[in-house]
């Protein structure tokens, strides 16, 4: 099922807010998970698992290291869902 980038971003905002307690309004495509959003390596695992469940995609461990910004994650999920 195709997903729009806007839908994925909206979903990721909810997930990151839940996991890291960062206000959704500060979560933008160019934000770095570690430096800007205080998502450490353990919390990133939570974000990934929650995103897999929500969007019905697989995000392999080797791909996670390349997901530096929120935009990286949106692109990966949109492509994976095609």
């Amino acid at each position, binding site marked *: 099922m195709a997903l729009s980038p806007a839908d994925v971003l909206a979903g990721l905002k909810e997930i990151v807010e839940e996991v890291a*307690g960062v206000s959704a309004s500060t979560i933008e495509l160019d934000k770095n998970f570690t430096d800007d959003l205080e998502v450490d390596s353990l919390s990133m695992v939570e974000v990934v*698992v929650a995103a897999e469940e929500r969007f019905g995609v697989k995000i392999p461990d080797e791909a996670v290291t390349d997901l530096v910004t929120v935009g990286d994650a949106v692109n990966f999920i949109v492509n994976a869902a095609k």
Partner: protein
Amino acid sequence: MTRRVVVTGLGATTPLGADVDSTWAALIAGKSGVRLLTEEWRELLPVHFAARVHTEPADQMERVEMRRLDRSEQFALVASREAWKDAGSPDVDKERLGVVIASGIGGVITLLDQYDNLREKGARGVSPHTVPMLMPNGPAANVGLELQAKAGVHTPVSACASGAEAIGYALEMIRTNRADIIVSGGVEAAIHQLPMAGFAAMKALSTRNDAPERASRPYDRDRDGFVLGEGGGILILEEYEHAKARGAKIYCELVGQGLSSDGYHIAAPDPDGAGVQRAIKFALADAKLSTKDIVHLNAHATSTPAGDVAEAHALRLALGSDIDHVAVSATKSMTGHLLGGAGAIESVFIVKALQERLAPPTINIENLDPAVTVDVVRDKARPLPAGQIAALNDSFGFGGHNVVLAFATL
């Protein structure tokens, strides 16, 4: 030159209150913190009640912080924050700041909840925070991280003696010049069907389901086991000169500790109480106190048939006729038994008792067991004498661990 150790801050979250002041007020008023459990699983057990904390951590900390902390770690942070603030948030060299916080069982609720996740959702369903949440040193580690303590962060484990052992360990860290300030104490969060079923299988828990508030009754003839409690207590210990130099409020001095082990049985108390007696004698010697100096004792007294009598017997043998002028309080009658948190909250109570010159009551004694020949403070709090006074806190753990702490007014 001996480095003396004083108490400069207190914190607690207990079945009686959200902090030290509310807990102490309820304790002196003789309130019970024991309640019927509301969970459906209670029906699986022969015991339907426990002593949950008065105030949920959710009311005391942020949601996001909570979700990566085991309940025991939440208790540790809540109580440590209160204690640190009470000590005046001291400005201390982080390399001279340590943390010693014990837990008897550690993050057992996390362990069991994540096992449920594993079975329902597979390995992907297990939280990446599982290990930092279940490790018994997690409460100490999280407090150490928050305060950036760098002198050492430790977690002694000796079942129900753990909290007292942590405070004793902290005493030695300051005495041996490893640190100037230690955040010390113990926590427990084990109210869950599995540990409760385990304690029930040992016949260690009271099953007085028709009267939960009357179930914890140390020294009563009809006591039938302990009541599981949760929460924790924290003492800020500080080197005396350090505390004086910064103008800290000083509650009292932690003057000594005594440690021994029974070598008798994994769970049953030695009926002769020889190990307990030795721990008391070691504590008095370490504190340079005589039996005549002791005016108050917060007993381990958990409300089990064998334990309470063995302890009372040992107290009489260790203190001789001087036990007759010791006001003995069994506060587990109100708080339930906090396992690794017990020795810590009871040390908080001793510090308050010395400050307020008031020994807390022991509730629920309808008929004093004639085998108990110590002067139990029953029903109402009792004033303690003026002048220089000292008090003991004894704690024992499954495995035969005995820890006695001695506190004295300055």
